[in-house]
């Protein structure tokens, strides 16, 4: 790789990262200010540095329970999504069967339902089955858009693995479950990592369904934030602090799956 080309790439990357981080920097900056300071003056650093916004969140149960609730349903959702998506993605990538293309496309269509009007039917459905205001309800509802995504991502990664690997394993006497767990899963680690991350992410940031299906016991952090916005005028500072904290769990998740994303196929090869 010649030198100037390398520099152009790096410059581009740095420029993008600056663009990506500036709004986040502004949010972090706001989270250490008081409301009065945010609205009255422009400054790159807080003039009266305060931890009060974070203290509010960590001491007030209505705030911190929101994080716990969100984490619970997001975790349930991610686990179910990946577990059911793995075998299905394998079936789609390896075999043809009656209606396979239709089912695959039907799965995708479930991501295309405009949420606004579907909220009321969702509310009615989950009230009828007695799941309202539970973590399970939100986790199940989010399966609607996460399972198709997981199947889709995993199918892409699995199709990249030559079919000869499966055939060799069967000839060597591996049963399907043993082959799948011992040989196939390590090969598509990158895909599982990416899929898990996206399931986590989409479930974590979704607002409309999560807010509709919960009231008190399972109220997610995204809903807590909207309430604070409307109730106390506009509590920008606490909101900014809460926003900063919502990034933390996801950042940890990426940190764990980063190797799967980064190393990909080459490392998984036996």
């Amino acid at each position, binding site marked *: 790789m010649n030198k100037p080309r390398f520099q152009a790439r790096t410059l581009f990357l740095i420029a993008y990262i600056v663009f990506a981080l500036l709004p986040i920097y502004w949010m972090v900056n706001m989270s250490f200010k008081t409301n009065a300071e945010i609205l009255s003056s422009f400054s790159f650093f807080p003039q009266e540095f305060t931890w009060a916004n974070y203290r509010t969140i960590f001491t007030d149960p209505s705030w911190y329970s929101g994080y716990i609730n969100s984490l619970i349903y997001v975790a349930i959702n991610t686990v179910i999504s990946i577990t059911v998506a793995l075998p299905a993605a394998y079936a789609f990538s390896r075999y043809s069967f009656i209606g396979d293309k239709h089912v695959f496309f039907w799965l995708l269509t479930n991501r295309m339902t405009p949420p606004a009007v579907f909220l009321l039917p969702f509310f009615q459905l989950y009230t009828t089955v007695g799941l309202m205001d539970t973590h399970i309800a939100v986790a199940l509802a989010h399966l609607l858009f996460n399972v198709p995504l997981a199947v889709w991502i995993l199918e892409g990664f699995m199709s990249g693995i030559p079919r000869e690997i499966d055939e060799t394993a069967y000839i060597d006497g591996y049963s399907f479950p043993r082959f799948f767990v011992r040989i196939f899963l390590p090969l598509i680690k990158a895909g599982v990592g990416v899929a898990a991350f996206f399931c986590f992410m989409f479930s974590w940031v979704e607002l409309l369904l999560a807010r509709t299906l919960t009231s008190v016991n399972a109220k997610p952090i995204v809903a807590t934030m909207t309430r604070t916005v409307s109730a106390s005028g506009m509590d*920008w500072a606490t909101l900014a602090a809460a926003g900063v904290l919502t990034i933390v769990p996801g950042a940890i998740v990426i940190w764990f799956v980063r190797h799967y994303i980064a190393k990909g196929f*080459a490392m998984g090869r036996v």
Partner: protein
Amino acid sequence: MSTTTKPVNQKAWLLVLPVIICVAFSAILPLMTVVNYSVQDIISPERRVFVGTEWFAAVMRDEDLHAALWRQLTFSFAVLAVEIPLGIALALSMPAQGWRASAVLVLVALSLLIPWNVVGTIWQIYGRADIGLLGMALQKMGFDYSYTGNALHAWITVLVMDIWHWTPLVALLCYAGLRSIPDAYYQAARIDGASKFAVFRYIQLPKMRGVLMIAVLLRFMDSFMIYTEPFVLTGGGPGNATTFLSQYLTQKAVGQFDLGPAAAFSLIYFLIILLLCFILYNWMQRVGTATKENTGE
């Protein structure tokens, strides 16, 4: 799905069944309920009148809807036109390994993790000319920037916000796709003396086909249903410059509480997305197959 021939095996249905059960639970019943609403005039929960296709006809004639649809189409295609090339470029320039790769990966993905209503809220402050970094900077550069007063500025702000928010999705998917290319391919290309562009065109791009398809369709359908971010940032204004389809729909469903027309509208909305995705999907499938034949894979 790839179009190469695969062995026929009807037992594969058993592997797909769990997925269908999981999704159908949350998909079929609500969809049926919406279909049910769309053919009735709901005066109160007890008083409903069957009206047939009246709502559908009314929705199709709605001038405001046509305007919102055009705004939406322009917006979604602008999103794709910027985010896909930018995402690919980003994935290509991200370091492949080492601590730098990890750090860059986390930094790039950060904006994806912010709840959508918070995204709108951050940009609301960020874009303000008196107290926000972006607004202040543009003001200092001599632009009379105001996302609340100027329709064009509002539209561009929503677009830039979307680019900021979602380009990482494209970049991460492409990055994962790139990492799955075995080194042997690059070595072979080096031996053949292939140019950088040739490597991109004949090795990297075909290998990213699967993930790119996901990225294009995801970005298309999600941007077509964009709601929370512009709602918080501009509230659809100024005027209705940033009132996209789902916001228009919500105004109808919640604001005026017209369940029947709103349900009819959302079914039409759903069908539009479905149709466009179907076209995109098949088109990309075809382009991909053609490439495969050209490169003799």
